[in-house]
C-alpha cells in the first residue's frame, strides 16, 4: 500500500519539474482544448512532437507513461471501435446490419486513439513532475477570481491539502485494521462478490469512526493554533513565475498557431 493513486509524483530537477505549477496546470488544460483542433495527420504529428518533446525535457522514464495508458486501454479500445464501426463516409469495405467499416471510420478511429494517448501522456506528465500539494496550490491561485462570486477558495484549498496530507495516514490505518480483522478471521479478497462486500463492512466502520475522531481532534488543534478562517492569512509556500514558464507558454501558443494553419492546409 501507499504507492497507489497520489504517489505518482517522481521528484526530479528538470526544466519541467522546476516550472510553476500554475503554468503546468494551465498548459495541460490548454493542450486538452487545442487537441480538438487537430483534424489531419500533419496536425497529429505536430502534437505528438510537442508531447514527446515535453516528456524528453522532463527526463522521466517513458515506462511511467505506458503504465498511465494501461488502466484506460479498454475504454480507449471501446471508443475507437465505436468510431470505426459507426461512422460512415468514403469507401465502404464491409457492411453488416448497422455496422459498417469505412475509410473515414478507420481514419476517425485512429484520430480518437491518438487523442486519448496524447491527453493521457500530457496529464501523466503533469502528475509525474508536480507534487500533489503544488497542484493544490496552483488550483487555489487559479480559482482566485471565483472569490468574487463568494466561492470559499482558501477553505477549498486547505481542505484539499489536508485531504492529501491524510491519504497516507488513512492508508496505514486501513492496513492496520485489515490486519486486526484478519487476525479475527475475516477474509479479504476471497469468496463470492457478496462475501467480499460483506468483508468490507468491518473495515469501513472502524475507519469511519476513527476518521471522525481525527477530524474533531484536528479542528481543535487548528483552533488552538489560531486558525480562524482563510481570510487574512499569509502564505509560507509560494511559487514564482519564471522565464521558463513564459517560454513554455510561448511554445504552446506557437504550436496553436501552426495547428490553426495546418487545419486549413
Amino acid at each position, binding site marked *: 500500500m*501507499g504507492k497507489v493513486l497520489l504517489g505518482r509524483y517522481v521528484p526530479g530537477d528538470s526544466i519541467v519539474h522546476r516550472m510553476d505549477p500554475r503554468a503546468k496546470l494551465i498548459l495541460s488544460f490548454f493542450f486538452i482544448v487545442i487537441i480538438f483542433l487537430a483534424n489531419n495527420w500533419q496536425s497529429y504529428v505536430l502534437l505528438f512532437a510537442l508531447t514527446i518533446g515535453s516528456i524528453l525535457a522532463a527526463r522521466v522514464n517513458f515506462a511511467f507513461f505506458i503504465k498511465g495508458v494501461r488502466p484506460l486501454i479498454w475504454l480507449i479500445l471501446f471508443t475507437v471501435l465505436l468510431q470505426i464501426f459507426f461512422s460512415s463516409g468514403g469507401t465502404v469495405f464491409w457492411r453488416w446490419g448497422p455496422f459498417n467499416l469505412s475509410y473515414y471510420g478507420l481514419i476517425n478511429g485512429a484520430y480518437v486513439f491518438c487523442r486519448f494517448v496524447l491527453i493521457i501522456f500530457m496529464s501523466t506528465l503533469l502528475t509525474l513532475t508536480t507534487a500533489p*500539494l503544488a497542484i493544490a496550490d496552483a488550483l487555489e491561485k487559479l480559482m482566485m477570481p471565483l472569490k468574487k462570486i463568494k466561492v470559499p477558495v482558501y477553505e477549498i484549498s486547505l481542505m484539499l*491539502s*489536508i485531504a*492529501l*496530507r491524510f491519504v*497516507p*495516514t488513512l492508508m*496505514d490505518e486501513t492496513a492496520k485494521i485489515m490486519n486486526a480483522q484478519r487476525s479475527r478471521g475475516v477474509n479479504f479478497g476471497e469468496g463470492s462478490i457478496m462475501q467480499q462486500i460483506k468483508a468490507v463492512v468491518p473495515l469501513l466502520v472502524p475507519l469511519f469512526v476513527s476518521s471522525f*475522531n*481525527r477530524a474533531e*481532534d*484536528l479542528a*481543535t*488543534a*487548528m*483552533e*488552538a*493554533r*489560531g*486558525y*480562524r478562517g482563510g481570510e*487574512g*492569512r*499569509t*502564505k*509560507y*509556500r*509560494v511559487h514564482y513565475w519564471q522565464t521558463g514558464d513564459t517560454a513554455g507558454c510561448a511554445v504552446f501558443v506557437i504550436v496553436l498557431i501552426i495547428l490553426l494553419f495546418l487545419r486549413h492546409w
Partner: protein
Amino acid sequence: MDIVEIKNLTFKYPQQEVQNFNNFNLKIKKGEWLAIIGHNGSGKSTLVRLIDGLLAPESGEITVSGIKLTPESVWDVRSKIGMVFQNPDNQFVGANVEDDVAFGLENAAIPREEMLIRVRQALERVGMWEFADHEPVRLSGGQKQRVALAGIIALKPEIIILDEATSMLDPEGRQSVLEIIRELNQVEHLTVISITHDIDEASNAQRVVVLDDGKIVQDDIPAKIFSHGASLVKIGLEPPFSEKLKEELIKQEIKVPDEYLTKEGMVDWLWQLFSKQ
C-alpha cells in the same frame, strides 16, 4: 506574578447533568512548571481547554497573562498559549514538517520573510531542521511531537500546555520531547502546564495538582505527592505498563520474576516463557 488566574469557575458540558467544575479556583505562577494529574474524567483536559478558550465557562473569570478571557479577547489569549495534544498525527496540519510549523505563523499573518527565519530557528531548536521536507508518514511519533513543539516555539508563546502530549510515544520519543520542554522552562522561563499519567513527566514539575471530579484534592511539590507510594494509582498516575501486566499475570497464577522488567525485558521473558516450561 500569576500568569494564569482562575476565579470561581463553573462549567458543565451541554449534554451532561453534573457540573464538571463548581466554584473552582487556581493560580499558576509565571515560569512555573505545573503538572496536573488525575483519573480519566477528572476534568484535566477540560480545565486546560477552558484556559485556552476552546470551551466557554458558564460563569467565573479566567485571566491569562493579564488578559481577561472573553469571546472578544479569546484570540489574544490563544496567542499567548501553545498547546500540544495527545495524538501526534491528529494535530499535524501541514503536508510536510516546515509547512506544519508555518501553519500557526500563517494564521498570525506573519510576513513571509520573517516566517522563513522563524520556521528555521524553531526547527533547529527541536533538532528537526534536516527533516524540513519530510511528510508526516515518514516521521516517528516523537519526531511529530517535536514538530508540534517547533510550531509553538515559532509563535513565541508565554505558556505551553501539554495535554498528555507524551502518552502515545515510546520511551526515547518521550525523553526527547521532555528534554526540549525542560529547556524551554529553565532557559526561556516559559510557563509549562502538563497533563500527564507519567511519573517521570510529573516529577519534572515544580508543582503537582491532583484533580478529582473537578476539585483539587492535593497541591504540592512532586516529592511530597509521590511519597504516598502505592496510592499513586488511586490519584491517576499509572505504574509502567510492564508492572501492570505483571500484576495481571499474577492474578492468572503465572509466576513472574520479582525484579523490575522494562518493556523489552518483559517481551523477552514472555516469548521465552513457554519453551522454558
